[in-house]
């Protein structure tokens, strides 16, 4: 039998003064990110901003400056040009905001111009994406509702299955994880798009799973461990499921890492969010959700004995 974790007696709850501060910082950073998104200072994906993006691969020797020249000619001066992969691949991603859209099928016109102006007739159009303002606002709305309903539904489920204090602690931990991951992504100046929102919700589900496992054990232990303090009981419970926590986090972390390393450009931010999310989600069950339950219980007990 190989055991990484053996009969640990780590004091998770004892560390809560430190971890509350860490969590508060993560949440503040997350709220800052939300503020930046709301005020349009964060980098948002095309899904949310609207506009066009074109990804082309040249066969001839075309440089960034050449592409810039074509864009200026097309009166798309504000376009962002990004070279993807190795310079030898000659793959360019060009993004133009909505306000510069000249009319219908702007992305088609742009690719045609890139082809004729550079004289590269074999230029391959890898991807064209054109999103009108109406669609992007619909997508924004949908993303908002998805986040809202997911958190709401999870909360209801936890309320049905656990006592109120567990439900609230789990919800706080889940919100914390979503904000923490979003905050880190915005801090790293990653682009927030629909896929990132998807990963945030997946993280919410995953993080809650982790919390539920710990809570299940606390509830089970409450039935037959009566003599110890509540803090010890929670500590014992966390330690008992610690090997499971670490191993599941490890397997999920590994697959998320594989997606990050090999999944390519499309999945880059999505998988990065997952990688961070697995770590944060695991951390929050042991260092945030459980301590909240302990503090709540202690507060209740003090009130009861105080009477």
């Amino acid at each position, binding site marked *: 039998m190989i055991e990484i974790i053996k009969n640990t007696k780590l004091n998770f709850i004892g560390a809560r003064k430190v971890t509350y501060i860490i969590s508060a910082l993560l949440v503040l950073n997350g709220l800052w990110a939300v503020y930046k998104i709301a005020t349009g200072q964060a980098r948002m994906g095309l899904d949310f901003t609207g506009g066009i993006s074109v990804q082309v691969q040249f066969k001839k020797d075309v440089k960034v400056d050449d592409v810039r020249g074509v864009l200026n000619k097309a009166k798309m001066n504000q376009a962002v040009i990004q070279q993807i992969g190795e310079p030898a691949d000659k793959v360019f991603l060009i993004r133009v905001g909505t306000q510069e859209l000249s009319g219908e099928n702007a992305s088609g016109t742009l690719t*045609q111009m890139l082809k004729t102006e550079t004289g590269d007739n074999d230029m391959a159009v890898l991807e064209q994406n054109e999103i009108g303002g109406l669609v992007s606002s619909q997508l924004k709305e949908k993303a908002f509702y998805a986040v809202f309903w997911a958190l709401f539904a999870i909360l209801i489920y936890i309320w049905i299955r656990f006592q109120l204090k567990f439900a609230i602690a789990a919800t706080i931990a889940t919100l914390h994880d979503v904000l923490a991951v979003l905050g880190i992504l915005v801090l790293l100046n990653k682009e927030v798009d629909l896929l990132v929102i998807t990963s945030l919700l997946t993280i919410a589900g995953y993080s809650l799973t982790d919390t539920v496992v710990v809570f299940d054990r606390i509830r*089970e232990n409450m039935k037959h461990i009566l003599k110890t303090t509540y803090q010890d009981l929670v500590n014992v419970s966390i330690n008992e499921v610690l090997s499971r926590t670490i191993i*599941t986090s490890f397997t999920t972390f590994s697959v998320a890492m594989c997606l990050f390393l090999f999944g390519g450009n499309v999945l880059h931010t999505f998988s990065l969010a997952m990688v961070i999310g697995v770590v944060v989600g695991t951390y929050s069950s042991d260092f945030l959700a459980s301590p909240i339950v302990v503090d709540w219980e202690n507060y209740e007990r003090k009130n009861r004995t105080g009477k």
Partner: protein
Amino acid sequence: MQRRMQITAFITLVLIIFSIVNLNPPFDKKDSQGNIIEKGKIKLGLDLQGGMYLKLAIDTDKMPANVKLEEAVSRALEILRNRIDALGVAEPLITREGDKYIVVQLPGVKDPERALNIIGKTALLEFKMADERDKISEMTDAAGNTVASKIPEGVMVLADKEGNRTPIFTKDLLTGNDLVDAKVQMGTYGTPVVWFKFSPEGGRKFAELTGDNVGKKLAIILDDKVYSDPVIKTRISGGEGIIEGNFNLDDAKDLSLVLRAGALPAPVKIINKYVVGPSLGADSIAKGQKSIIIGALVVVCFMAFYYGVSGLIADFALIFNVLFVLGILAALNATLTLPGIAGLTLTIGIAVDANVLILERIREEMRAGKTIRAAIDAGYHRAWLTILDAHITSLITAAILFQFGTGAIRGFAVTLFWGLLISLFTAFFITQSIFDLRKQYKTLSI
């Protein structure tokens, strides 16, 4: 225990047969020339196989007043179907979304720009009389812009393909709705022209119109552009005519195609367009495959290394999980997208959680002094509720993602949802039955 094993074995067998039948062949079977002999059962999303996605909105501002939106959208759907059928795209998907949107998906379309040209054209053909009495110069200001107040009642100004403006009487005489056929023909100078034929009713109207206006100019207008304005020499009774307009052959072909299919009841606006080239799709498939294979290998090897034979049993269940999920996706005709592959990869990492929970529990029970058999039973028994709780939270998020997601996101939600649901069965019941194959254990590799 016996009965439970039998039921599990039966369901497993059914699911295996179901998956294999539904998945055969998983991907397109091609002959040596690269032609598809048999379509693969796994439907690949546009992001993986390349193609075009279009979301169109009916331009309600330009819709004729007597047409209801509902009718206009239904009619537009029908006409777009006709046009796309004529274009010859395999498995197009044309659906209505909301009250005024139409989504067109053309997987594997070879020339997206041409397809867009055909789909986006309103193709409203109109025959009106040119206004030869008023001069365009009298309707413009000093800068050459037309001034609305200077345009006489019942007259409008339209441009031809070169941008030259001519006054046209607004009165509707005939439209493309009276057409029954259109074809490309070679004109007198060897340039392609589009020949059209009216219905008997349309032919009668056309004869009347031409008979009444001999010597005058007839404007042939397509989508508010004057294509030609020939002088009517004589009454035309054959119900046929041609449109000239310096077409090249492809333009003429496309025009005759859209004329045959009919005009859209109102212009459509492209509000969302997504085109993926085949090379990017192939690249995404390769990257997705690599991620999922390496990810699965890491998890499978780790489980076997850490839990020995018990880990191998979990791996065995994991393989069934992936097989069943793909089988269900194929049966549901769901689309596999790149995020879908990511969902499947994540499922592999998350699905073993159930096994980890069970195996850790068995270890605990063994440490507490139980016999191996009793530890296994207690492990499964006690882990069940936790596993259920843990799965339901993730299933809720997957279901909500499916509800609110579009395209690729839906692909993710679908694989995650089924992956988790199936793992309840594979990770719990299948592995339990394998453990139950032996009644007593002297040792257990765990």
